[in-house]
């Protein structure tokens, strides 16, 4: 029973963590692009990284927390416009190519040693540089910790209760925003564009403007996710690379694209699979077969195979409507 106990404790810990919430928010952004509008953005990690840089660099320069958030959002809007204006009039594939390349450009430029005075180069920006601006906002005592059941976290510092609460409030607000938008005629127009943009154009809708709006909204959510993602750690360009984008797609497809809670559920499940595997292997598999270092790599394999099986046998994900995906084009 030790194993099950450990498993549930670890599940809870992971689900509560700011990283899960940050992933869920970024995946919701991707859902706006891919699930609702049909835009193939393969550079969501670029939006996250850019948001994180925008926030961290502004705070480091003395801008303060709120200015940092504002800069992160503005940078994401500009990035979305930069990518969207030339490509969204073209066929969908072009956006995919441009986003994957642009996300790599952000990552490589950020990691460039020549920019080390600003971005910290490959080492990135340490959390201690920007975290104080966030922890200063905490209503809780600056020091001390709090225990709920098996979970004991600091109140304010580092990977704290305060950060968890903020992440969850933001996640809930984002879900409400997406719910309102997708149930509105605006959301209906997006879904129409996903189905056939020429048909929507022939009905007098400015498809280009809708696509730009969707790209900007999803990108901004990506940037918010990015800021929350680095809040308990540090801004490191290589931690937000291509794999992050594909993980977001995994979360999205697992939970169900074009649903409001799909990406949230998908993020939970994704991390639970990784944690569960980790606990299972360390409890039952002798280290002569698989050692500690090999577990995460094995986890990647399981996730990859799982994603393939998912797309083949349940393309609508867990929350998706089966009927909605039954009809091909």
């Amino acid at each position, binding site marked *: 029973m030790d194993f099950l106990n450990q498993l549930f404790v670890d599940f809870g810990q992971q689900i509560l963590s700011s990283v899960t919430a940050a992933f869920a928010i970024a995946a919701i952004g991707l859902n706006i692009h891919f699930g609702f509008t049909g835009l193939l953005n393969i550079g969501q990690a670029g939006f996250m990284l850019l948001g994180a840089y925008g926030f961290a660099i502004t705070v480091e320069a003395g801008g303060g927390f709120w200015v940092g958030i504002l800069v992160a959002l503005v940078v994401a809007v500009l990035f979305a416009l930069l990518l969207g204006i030339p490509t969204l009039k073209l066929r969908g594939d072009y956006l995919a190519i441009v986003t994957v390349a642009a996300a790599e450009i952000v990552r490589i430029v950020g990691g460039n040693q020549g920019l080390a005075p600003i971005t910290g180069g490959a080492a990135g920006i340490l959390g201690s540089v920007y975290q104080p601006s966030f922890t200063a906002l905490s209503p809780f005592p600056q020091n001390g910790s709090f225990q709920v059941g098996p979970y004991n976290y600091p109140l304010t510092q580092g990977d704290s209760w305060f950060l968890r609460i903020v992440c969850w409030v933001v996640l809930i607000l984002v879900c409400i*925003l997406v719910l*309102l*938008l997708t149930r*509105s*005629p*605006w*959301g*209906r*127009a997006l*879904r*129409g564009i*996903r*189905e*056939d943009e*020429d*048909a*929507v*154009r*022939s*009905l*007098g*809708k*400015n*498809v280009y403007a809708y696509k730009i*709006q969707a790209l900007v*909204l999803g990108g901004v959510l990506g940037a918010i996710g990015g800021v929350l993602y680095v809040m308990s750690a540090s801004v490191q360009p290589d931690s937000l690379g291509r794999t992050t984008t594909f993980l977001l797609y995994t979360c999205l497809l697992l939970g169900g694209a074009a649903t409001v809670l799909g990406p949230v559920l998908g993020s939970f499940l994704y991390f639970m699979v990784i944690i569960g595997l980790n606990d299972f292997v360390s409890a039952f598999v002798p280290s002569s077969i698989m050692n500690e270092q090999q577990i995460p790599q094995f986890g990647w394999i399981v996730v990859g195979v799982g994603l393939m099986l998912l797309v083949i046998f349940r393309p609508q994900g867990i929350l998706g409507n089966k*009927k*909605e*995906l*039954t*009809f*091909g*084009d």
Partner: protein
Amino acid sequence: MTEPAPAVAADDYDYDRKRLRAKLATVSQEPGSAKPQPILSVDHIVRRFGGVTACDVDHLEVQRGAITALIGPNGAGKTTFFNLITGFDRPSSAKPRFASSGGEHAEWRFQDRTLTATSAFRVARAGMVRTFQLTKALSRMTVMDNMLLGAQDQPGERFLSALVRPTWTKREQEIRGKAEEILSRFTLDEKKDDYAGSLSGGQRKLLEMARALMSDPAMIMLDEPMAGVNPALTQSLLGHIESLRDNGTTVLFVEHDMHMVRHISDWVVVMAEGRIVAEGPPTTVMRHQAVVDAYLGSHHDQDLGDDAVLEEDFGAAVAAEEAERAEEPEATDAAPTEGVR
């Protein structure tokens, strides 16, 4: 079936079809002839794909209140022409952005509005809504959502007002009622909560037409509305198209089915190799020599399996026949109409 109020109450709309046909009977039957009340007037519209000129229309006017058919053999440029005037394609002859005025640039006017180089959604907003040859039902949306998407002036389609539900619920109610009314006219009301992808081909055609009507267009452009529709449904589609006209929507459609063209159209425009070769009322235009030639080739009545082809002077014989034909134009009227079918 209740007849809804006329969608567009233009003063010069001929609700009386007899009067309209009488007016059209006086129009000269040659390509590019002027109509008494044109709703659409197109000038110098040319589209080239590499060396191929797909469409080269010098002038065309479409009569308001008429059902105008655009016919022609495969590859005549009918769909290209549709795409050009609805903004889905750009004419090669479009006026360059910084060119001085003058010269023969593409220009077309719709209801006294110049639509030159206008994007497709603006054309639709101006009141010229089209359907597609390959039906574009939005499969993974319900029939009702398809319909609601067709409505104009929806505050809820703007990003910020979408967030504030009270700003758009009233309009949503209005268009939902209207959608239900149109769906019941098209006998799709029982399908309104089904996904559009589950409809049959003919029902999708109906849905596409019904969706286009949500915006009360002044003119609806149907690209092969009968393609792939079974004969029983064809009858009801024909009825729908005629009732559109009777309710105040001018209809322009592309069609291959000659029977249908003859049955419902008031005016027929014939295209071949990108050009308009003939215009006229359906009963007479089919007999036009240019039309017969376009569909069947100039030598359709010549048996090429005849030994004559082996004779050296066959070419001369054909040339002689051509010359003879040119001299006696009245003889061309006697060309068989059956062959056109």
